[in-house]
């Protein structure tokens, strides 16, 4: 977007978080995406969420596939390792990375082409396995980097910039994630940061497969009349089911009264995630109810956003595999190699 370098100086009164970092310490290289791209707002939301949650930047591993969305990990968390993998295959690389070191926070950033088209298989299986991660699809319904072809999330009947009407049925990523066993499923909108940042924070706190579908308009190729992924369309059809607040148990925070009341979801670190209900009676811990609600509103042309489902007691891949607490990349000869004596026993059993 810009070729001007960021200033090195910062204002001396900028706030530091509990681990001593400025918000700026969570930023990355300058974005090369188009001005107004929804993806840059998501990067900014990620920066804010990590800073607010006092996460040490280097304890995050960012992984992505190929496409505009997958370029973004270069533009936030510059002190984290990042891995721009191959198209549609980020989930498997993230899975392997997570197996190697269970102590880092794994952030998978992908797009709708990357996850719903070429990578649908890996998307499905990473959810099934319950990999402890935050998986974000920056969903604009279009291939930006190759200039405007439809992706698999484009709505049937929506129109491309060149006037072509999409005839294929769309893939709804949140419905899919719910069906496949993701234990935290949300949808946000890059144009609503106030909603998005808490959704990301909730996903980071979640100790299982957390998925956020973020509708993120492509200003270059999918922000016109006839598109169902434009700023205008999403603003007009956004149906939020709830808003998230984070409450540190140490400080008593008075929750703002909301029409539907609120639900508290305890977090692994002892804090509490408080959900203010917007939709009357919506229960985000009811998986089947969530699927039903999303399908009904989808039929009405509404984009349901908010925290759609959360399992307060997720079981992750490492628990399934019963692996040791020590990350595998720290295991040494003593833990890994049985030695010459054991091998002599093997030889004896093979004679």
């Amino acid at each position: 977007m810009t070729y001007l370098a960021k200033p090195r100086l910062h204002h001396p009164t900028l706030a530091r978080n509990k681990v001593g970092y400025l918000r700026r310490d969570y930023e990355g290289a300058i974005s090369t995406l188009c001005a107004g791209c929804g993806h840059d707002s998501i990067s900014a939301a990620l920066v804010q969420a990590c800073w607010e949650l006092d996460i040490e930047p280097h304890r995050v591993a960012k992984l992505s596939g190929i496409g505009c969305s997958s370029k973004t990990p270069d533009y936030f968390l510059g002190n984290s390792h990042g891995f721009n993998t191959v198209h549609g295959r980020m989930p498997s690389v993230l899975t392997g990375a997570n197996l190697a070191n269970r102590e880092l926070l794994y952030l998978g950033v992908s797009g709708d082409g990357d996850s719903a088209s070429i990578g649908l298989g890996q998307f499905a299986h990473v959810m099934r396995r319950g990999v402890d991660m935050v998986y974000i699809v920056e969903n604009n319904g279009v291939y930006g980097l190759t200039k405007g072809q439809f992706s698999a999330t484009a709505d049937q009947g929506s129109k491309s910039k060149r006037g072509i009407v999409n005839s294929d049925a769309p893939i709804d990523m949140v419905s899919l994630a719910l069906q496949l066993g993701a234990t935290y499923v949300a949808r946000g909108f890059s144009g609503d940061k106030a909603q998005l940042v808490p959704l990301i924070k909730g996903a980071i706190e979640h100790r299982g497969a957390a998925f956020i579908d973020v509708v993120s308009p492509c200003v270059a190729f999918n922000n016109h009349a006839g598109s169902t992924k434009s700023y205008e369309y999403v603003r007009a059809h956004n149906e939020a089911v709830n808003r998230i607040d984070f409450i540190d148990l140490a400080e008593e925070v008075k929750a703002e009264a909301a029409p539907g009341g609120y639900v508290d979801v305890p977090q692994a670190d002892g804090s509490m995630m408080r959900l203010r209900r917007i939709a009357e009676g919506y229960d985000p811990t009811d998986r089947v109810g969530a699927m039903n609600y999303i399908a009904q509103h989808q039929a009405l042309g509404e984009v349901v956003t908010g925290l759609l489902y959360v399992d307060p007691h997720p079981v992750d891949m490492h628990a399934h595999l019963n692996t040791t607490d020590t990350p595998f990349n720290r295991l040494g000869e003593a833990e890994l190699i049985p030695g010459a004596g054991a091998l002599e026993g093997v030889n004896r059993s093979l004679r």
Partner: protein
Amino acid sequence: MNAPINAGQVRPASAVRPLAAINDFVVKFANVNGSGSASANELFARAILRMGVPVSPRNIFPSNIQGLPTWYEVRVSEKGWLGRRGGVDMMVAMNPQTWERDVKEIEPGGYLFYDSTKFLPPERFRDDVIAIGMPLTEICNATYGESRERQLMKNIVCLGALSVLLGIESTVIEQLFGEQYKGKERLLDSNVKALHLGRDYATQCLESIGLRIERRDAVGDRIFMEGNSAAALGAVYGGASVCAWYPITPSSSVAEAFTAWCKKFRIDPETGRSRVAIVQAEDELASIGMVVGAGWNGARAFTATSGPGISLMTEFIGLAYFAEIPVTIVNVQRGGPSTGMPTRTQQADLIACAYASHGDTKHVLLLPEDPTECFEHTAAALDLADRLQTPVFVMTDLDIGMNTRLCRPLAWDDSKRMDRGKVMDFDMLESGRDFGRYLDVDGDGIPFRTYPGTHPTKGAYFTRGTTRNPYAKYSETGQDYVYNMERLLRKFDTAKALVPQPVVRRARKKATLGAIYFGSTSPAMDEALEVLDEHGVGLDTMRLRAFPFPDSVKAFIDAHEKVFVVEQNRDAQMKSMLVNELQVDPHRLVSVLHYDGTPITARFIIGRITAATTRSAS
């Protein structure tokens, strides 16, 4: 015991003298798969081994679970030849579907052991083969009530009869039963009974034959093991903590054996928790992706696959090469292309692996000859992958992987440490050392890397498959690209000295002819060389154990007028690689190619080399 109706049908061969041999012959079992023959056949081989005589059995099986033909060929060789010789001295023909070709395969003067329950007309036999009929079905039907038991025990009754004919001691087989059915007294008892049922019949009704097993002490301390199990154990000793795989014949048993070894060796005794993660992925794209992710994050990881899996993994292999991530791939080769011959053996993935991916790439291949080297090379591959930060292939094949082979005992040096390669840790970063992820600091082409999460402000970088400068920043300049590609070549050159070196064997007299071979061709080659030498054809040989080729390979070729390159594929892939990499004159390399899916035989090699040397002499 009541004598069955068709008792003792032995048709003497009229046209030829019966074969006679002690501890040197080939017995082949023709069976139907799913009939329980496999375990009885393996007992047959093990019993001979326990009598101190080397054997080398091979399964020739279909891509099927039940009902199709399967064979088990046992080479008995006191001299210790473990390859296929070629030809069959005794056929145990238990499959009517393949009767004709089985009978045809027997050497003149050889023996045909068959089930004589049903009458077979004389034209289905050969005049120059001694037929030994035994009414196996009839005996089993008379003894056992239940149909599955009839079928399973038929194999053991047959084993009993063969043990008498060939002089295999019954106590040896009984001891093997004892080990196999430890704590299962009922099974042990019924198997011993069936064995003696067969033995008694043979003693009473069958005439003796010319093939004999006699007790020797020619096995020594060698072990009897499958290559896939050995490769899996090599991965344990190489320190692999992540295994991601997708089922494919003939490699599935690598991951399965790894799982079994890890149950034994990788459970934390205090917590009962696992020091390994084994994931059956959704496909080979995912299995290699997981290995790449784990390798990037500092754990040792491997996958095992076969040809079609390699094709699917190719994009990721290119990424791992270019982004420089340690990856270990055990490729148990089978017959290609496409689905090809999934249950047959070949060495036909050499080029596909050596140059896998689009763009300019070169990969390290290790070429084990037997299970012992499967163990050693897989452990070494994990070290090499870390040292070189690149994919390393262990190129085994079905012949080594899925057959039980007599081989050197496995050994390990406890003072050996894992070579984790050039990794900058917290202290090195903190000391202010310059970190350029793709910077060649030592001139060997190998840069330093960091594991994610090491240091709060130093050493983080963005890994990508796109071009970058030595400090891992995105770059599209030609200069950065060329620097990187040339450094990768330098790194490949460094690998030459690190990989297992070739093994050279000199002919008794100074030779002008040479032969190059590798992998599962070894045992057949050993025998062929001995026979050729007896016939006055002396060859110096070089057994390749890795790619890239060390400089000694070119020197070997240069030192000989003509060099045979023996390989198990159609297109002379190793020869192409030698020509391509070493700039040698292609005319000096003469291919000996065997690629029908069965393991190469000594007779085939002898035939081809003899023909070529005679032609050139005349």
